[in-house]
């Protein structure tokens, strides 16, 4: 922190509250990241018990999000934040919502896995786990950028979304081809398509978090021209 010419430092308690809120946000981020990975693992290994667990645990994620939101609203009401404090709390509200939605996608993949039941996937799952890896890496990077106030890293996340989109297109075309050739597998093909779509949406949510980081740090919305530079 640079040397400030004015008086002593104040509002230590508010600073602690903001720090706690950020820690809780990271904890929620870690929960949804694990849920995503678990949901795809369970789908791949056909572990229905694990899929059920992912579905159950989404309630915990939902509750945590509600708690976080309440805490942020309390701080806004009580502390009447302005400038970077205000931007931090607004970002926390947005980010907790994005994380909760990612949790919902993981839960969705859990449900897809249950729908598949004891049927084998119509093809070996390679690209879908890769999508999950990339999407969760983007999520981790976006939260890291949030904590470190790292705008450059946030822009990198925005640029990385193209890779997930490309993977999604690839999975989509491949599945379409299989389903056209054998209409009997359309139902199972659709399950995988849904899964790929959910993962693509998770990556989009990670970019939303990255956009919040840009706003939090700079006070300005994302510059689309900046994204293409990464």
């Amino acid at each position: 922190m640079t040397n400030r010419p004015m008086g002593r430092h104040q509002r230590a308690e508010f600073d602690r509250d903001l720090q706690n809120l950020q820690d809780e946000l990271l904890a929620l981020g870690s929960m949804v990241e694990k849920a995503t990975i678990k949901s795809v693992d369970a789908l791949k290994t056909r572990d229905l018990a694990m899929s059920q667990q992912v579905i159950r645990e989404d309630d915990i994620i939902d509750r945590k999000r509600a708690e976080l939101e309440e805490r942020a609203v309390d701080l806004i009401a009580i502390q009447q934040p302005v400038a970077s404090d205000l931007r931090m709390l607004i970002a926390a509200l947005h980010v907790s919502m994005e994380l909760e939605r990612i949790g919902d996608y993981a839960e969705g993949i859990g449900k897809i896995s249950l729908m598949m039941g004891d049927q084998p996937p119509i093809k070996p799952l390679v690209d879908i786990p890769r999508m999950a890896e990339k999407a969760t890496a983007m999520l981790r990077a976006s939260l890291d950028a949030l904590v470190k106030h790292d705008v450059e890293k946030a822009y990198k996340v925005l640029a990385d979304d193209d890779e997930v989109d490309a993977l999604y297109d690839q999975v989509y075309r491949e599945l379409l081809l299989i389903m056209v050739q054998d209409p009997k597998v359309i139902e199972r093909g659709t399950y995988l398509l849904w899964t790929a779509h959910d993962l693509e949406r998770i990556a989009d949510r990670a970019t939303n978090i990255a956009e919040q980081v840009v706003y939090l740090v700079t006070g300005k919305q994302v510059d689309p021209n900046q994204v293409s530079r990464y």
Partner: protein
Amino acid sequence: MTTITETTATDTTLSVTNLDMYYGSFRALRDINLDVQRNSVTALIGPSGSGKSTLLRCFNRMNDLIPGARVEGQVLFNGEDIYHPSIDPTEIRLRVGMVFQKPNPFPKSIYDNVAFGLRINGFRGNMDEAVERSLRRAALWDEVKDRLKASGLTLSGGQQQRLCIARAVAVQPDIILMDEPASALDPISTLAIEDLMRELSRDYTIIVVTHNMQQAARVSDWTAFMTMGEDRAGYLVEVGDTHQIFTNPRDERTEGYITGRFG
């Protein structure tokens, strides 16, 4: 006496350039540069001792009344230098009215409080109409219309402050300076004064000193942040549109002050 022109080409009503202000050998203000936009509210914020009230009093030469006070630099009001030797300070104070922290009605009737400034300026129009118009502008008419002969001191604090605003408005100034106009009032009266400031800014230029950050954010179009240096001279750190100052200030000293962490 130099006539002060009604309008200038720009939207700046008050333009301050390289202003230094001294009380004897003590420099109270250092190198102030500020343009005040016409028909808007400008808030001066900053810690105690940063020279906000001193600066405010430079705008209608109220500091002239303090022995040893002197000003260097320029204050242009509608393009005219208000510190030019040919300018009569009382003329300035007529055009640049002032409302103080503590409501200070004269120990006279409500009517006479409002009529006072008009009378001493030889007003020849319809006094009843002028008083009513001013009281309406100050959002006080409905509360006092049946007791205009009652003493101004019988009113509540919030009403007294609105009476002072009516008194300031009566002489139809261009600028109204307000030095913490609501700090002695309860929250409801405070909001009434804030509403009034917004309303008045359609026709008047308002410059307000406030310690209440939320008030500055609510009422002002422009915010100027002042602080003081090691030599205790007050100076301007940042001036900007209020939205920008309160969401994304440029200077970290402003950030530190408005978020309540420093200063």
